[in-house]
């Protein structure tokens, strides 16, 4: 009988303690100000957003620079926890991390479960073209556009430019060769892949990736649902970073002309409507 009571008490203790551990603070902002630690869930193998630096063995990247800036504003230390796309939302809800900065695309489904900051990175499907030939989608109407087989890039093109003809090649190098020879006016797929092709191209100065985008991937920082003070603070901080030019500096550091990506920043951090 005594054993049984003990067992019950143990169970109750475990229940209480796990609950205490698991319960995320209702006001994360106040909690961080008290603990002086901001725990962020980041990617650790996705350059240049979040990856382990070979020399320092620490996680660096575009996402991390935003976390550092937010922590600096709070006067808190940063603690980075690697997360995967599957684990990041449960980790946040269980209180293991305070904020997600892990290339997370904002969508309505996710927004039901967590709160997103304003968009801090914006990407999507774009085009490589010969320099100066394409200023807007209109310039591609009725034209031939190359891509690689088996991707959903083709569907996006047909939706946004129905008059275009899509030629699907076996792989991107062939599609790019077709562009060089004028057989297609543009090659389309995700911006990161395009940037990689362009980085390797022998005569890259003749080509560019215009700021024309046909599918949107807005990335947001993720926070617990209803954690209003913290969300407001993060939004305020990244808006200030945009204003001061710090946000653009971070973009250029990871994606700009001095990197292998050579991307032009085609977005500004603004308040969501």
């Amino acid at each position, binding site marked *: 009988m005594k054993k049984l009571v003990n067992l019950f008490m143990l169970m109750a203790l475990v229940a209480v303690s796990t609950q205490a551990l698991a319960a995320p603070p209702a006001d994360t902002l106040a909690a961080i100000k008290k603990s002086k630690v901001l725990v962020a869930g980041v990617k650790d193998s996705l350059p240049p957003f979040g990856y382990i630096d070979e020399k320092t063995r620490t996680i660096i990247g575009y996402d991390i620079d935003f976390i550092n800036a937010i922590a600096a504003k709070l006067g808190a230390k940063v603690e980075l926890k690697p997360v995967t796309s599957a684990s990041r939302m449960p980790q946040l809800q269980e209180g293991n991390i305070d904020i997600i900065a892990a290339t997370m695309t904002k969508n309505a489904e996710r927004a039901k479960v967590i709160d997103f900051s304003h968009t801090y990175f914006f990407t999507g499907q774009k085009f490589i073209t010969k320099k100066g030939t394409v200023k807007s989608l209109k310039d591609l109407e009725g034209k*031939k556009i*190359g891509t690689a*087989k*088996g*991707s*959903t890039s*083709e*569907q996006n093109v047909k939706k946004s430019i129905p008059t275009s003809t899509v*030629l*699907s*090649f*076996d792989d991107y190098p*062939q599609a790019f*060769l*077709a562009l060089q*020879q*004028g*057989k297609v006016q543009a090659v389309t797929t995700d911006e990161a892949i395009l940037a990689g092709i362009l980085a390797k191209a022998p005569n890259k100065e003749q080509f560019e990736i215009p700021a024309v985008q046909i599918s949107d991937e807005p990335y947001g920082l993720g926070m617990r649902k209803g954690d209003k003070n913290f969300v407001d603070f993060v939004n305020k901080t990244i808006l200030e970073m945009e204003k001061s030019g710090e946000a653009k500096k971070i973009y250029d550091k990871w994606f700009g002309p001095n990197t292998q990506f050579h991307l032009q920043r085609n977005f500004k951090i603004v308040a969501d409507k």
Partner: protein
Amino acid sequence: MLSYQFDWSIILSGKYFEWLLSGLKVTLQLSLAGIILSFLLGLIVAVMRMSHFSPIRWAAWAFLEFTRNTPLLVQIFFWYFGSYKFLPTAVNDWLNAQSFEFAAALIALTIYTSAFIAEDIRSGVLSIPKEQMEAARSAGFSYLRSMQYIILPQAVRITVPPLVNQFLNLAKNSSLAMTIGVMELTYQARQVESYTFKGFEAFTAATVVYLAISIIITFLVHQYNERVLKLHKAA
């Protein structure tokens, strides 16, 4: 694998059915045009190959060896991507404004198949007793006219069975045109797979259609052969 759910309805109606149908149309266009053009080119090359004027004979021989002994896929890339280097800019610009993919695939298929057809026809001609040519020449026919009126009509009849093989190969080889973006049947089957993950259904449909095309070609040529052979016997 066991959990794979067959769903034939998605490829038997609606958008994906239309994709496959449009692919079939392109495959038929390529095959039909290819069969006619490669047969004509094959005839010409065969006659050149047997010419008594040695430069023509050598030219035909070089053409045959080159086209027979290089992969069709490489030839398709050669006509589509490689031709760019040899043509003037104006011609390239004009070609690129057309559906050059289709044309390049047709040229490659025609030239590749014509080499095999030429050899088949030549073997047919060689099986005609050479006295017929001598008789024709002594009756006042030129070499070309002897070929045209006396030798080739007989040789082509003998050549029909191996020609069927070449036509079937051409129809099936037309699937390689997908590598340069020609939206033929195999291309569309692969697109359906990309969008629906229903690869089994899409490729089964494509297989059945190729089989049907092949059987129809065989049947038609066989019919022709029967009639010609009957006429031949009657005469």
